């Protein structure tokens, strides 16, 4: 097993675990995340495995429901970023000229603001809520996808097979969907994974400042922020959500890095052919790729 494969496998397992925790939170959580028990700031015990917060709410349940909020917003944001950004990039690579100019200037404008500042300003003036938050964060990361899609489709658009497809009467829409998109999919998938890490960083930061999904919903960022008043008495309250955030960010980054190595276009041809003839999936790694 190559180290990239191993990294993808480990990170993939962690991501899968987080996703299961998020989806299964209502079943897995031992308590209602908003239920206040009389045991305030309790240490871990059989009743509350990770202890309780200053309102007597069960920390484990809040962590699980926090995973639900964070991962939902992260997934929606990346879908928004890739769903708007990638088509814009492909469009401007296909049409060039005025379309290209307008798209690139719009992207420059988004990039003219430091990301977190733009998010804070947008949330302040436009209001918050899960969907709005996801769209705002999505717009923040749209430039990366647009530029990536632009750069990769530029190479595809100049290929002979695209001329051939056009000569056979394929519409521009069909060309983009059937020929350009599949050929630029790998870098976009890698970027999705890396972006999930960034998005969780921004979402939890906003939440920490009280500008994320409004209370009483449990979010990791707010859990860190709420723990700060009691951290001297109950440092565990700070530790759990911090670890959850770091675990999620680390796993998405590692998955993205690993996928980039696995999906490296220079290896892909080799890899496909070997699979097709049934040889074990272990392409010789190009030295220092």
């Amino acid at each position: 097993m190559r180290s990239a494969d191993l990294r993808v496998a480990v990170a993939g397992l962690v991501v899968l675990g987080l996703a299961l925790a998020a989806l299964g939170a209502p079943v897995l959580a031992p308590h209602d995340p908003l239920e206040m028990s009389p045991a305030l700031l309790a240490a871990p015990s059989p009743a509350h495995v990770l202890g309780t917060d200053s309102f007597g709410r069960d920390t484990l349940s809040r962590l699980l429901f926090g995973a639900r909020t964070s991962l939902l917003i992260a997934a929606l944001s990346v879908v928004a970023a890739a769903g708007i950004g990638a088509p814009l990039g492909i469009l401007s690579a296909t049409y060039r000229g005025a379309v290209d100019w307008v798209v690139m200037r719009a992207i420059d404008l988004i990039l003219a603001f430091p990301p977190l500042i733009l998010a804070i300003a947008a949330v302040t003036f436009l209001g918050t809520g899960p969907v709005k938050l996801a769209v705002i964060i999505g717009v923040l990361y749209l430039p990366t996808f647009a530029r990536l899609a632009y750069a990769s489709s530029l190479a595809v658009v100049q290929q002979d097979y695209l001329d051939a497809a056009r000569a056979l009467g394929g519409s521009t829409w069909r060309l983009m969907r059937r020929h350009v998109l599949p050929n630029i999919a790998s870098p976009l998938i890698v970027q999705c994974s890396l972006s999930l890490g960034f998005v969780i960083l921004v979402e939890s930061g906003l939440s920490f400042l009280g500008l994320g999904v409004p209370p009483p919903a449990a979010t990791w960022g707010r859990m860190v922020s709420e723990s700060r008043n009691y951290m001297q008495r109950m440092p565990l309250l700070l530790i759990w959500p911090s670890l959850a955030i770091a675990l999620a960010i680390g796993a998405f980054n590692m998955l993205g890095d690993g996928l980039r190595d696995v999906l490296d276009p220079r290896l892909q041809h080799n890899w496909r052919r070997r699979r097709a003839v049934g040889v074990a999936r272990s392409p010789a790694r190009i030295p220092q790729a």
Partner: protein
Amino acid sequence: MDTYVIRRLAAAAGLTVAVVTVVFLLLRLVPGDVVLVMLGENEAPPDKVAAMRHALGLDRPLVVQYASWLSGALRGDFGRSFLSGRPIGTDLAARAPRSLELTGAALLLGVAVGVPLGALAARRRGSVLDFLAGGVAIVGITFPSFVVGSVAVLLFGLVLHWFPATGYVDFRSDPLGHLRHLVLPAATLALEIVAITMRMTRSSVLETLSQDFVRTAWAKGLGTAAVLVRHILRNSLIPVVTVIGLQAGTLLGRIVLVEYIFNWPGLSTLLLSGIYQRDYPVVQAVVLIVAVAFVCINLLVDLTYGAIDPRIRLG
């Protein structure tokens, strides 16, 4: 001035105009009546509402509002804070140097630790030092600043009492106390810079180590320090400079979290109190200052990069 510099300057000027326009429009994007939102009550007395609308200039045509806002901003006049009644420009002028100091200290610390650490890790690849440096990089990248800051407050401030946990002391009244208050926030901000410059320096130095001119330098009998500093580092630092420039955006965002945690009275705490109290003109002014500063930083990075590496200018 060659065409590269002129092109960059023109692009930055255009971008600044666009940024100013977007920030101006922000206040007009608030869903519902912004005056009612700011007053925070549904049945505010009509005369109060009208007075507020007039104070914000919202009773005039949009073009007139834009012109007066723009001319005010150019003169550093952002109107008065709706809550404190003080001119916003005065608060900005008092707080901007503190944010600048924190950013500068973090950059300096980050580069001063990151570059040598990266060079040493590359030189002794696979050693314990390399392994430890890799660990620092992973922590710096996966743990968000607000987590690092909170843990730093708890560990070094409240438990070990090495440094004051939060707060700010004026340099003129107590220079030593001022520096002691600076340590934790600056170190928190610097951790990610250390991680990123370290990784970049390491991989860049590793690449340079295998170059022919390095072998020549060794062969002609130069000492380790001379080869490392004069031949290897000098040729490895261009990507490091770029990566530091790219960090500017996240740094300006992360400083908001760090100032908030450590109660550092800079621009970000002004921004946040403006947000929490719905004092929108203050928010607008800070966002504008930070965004324009960011455009200027990017311009400087581009120009520096063009000066270091002539190939960029032809691109």
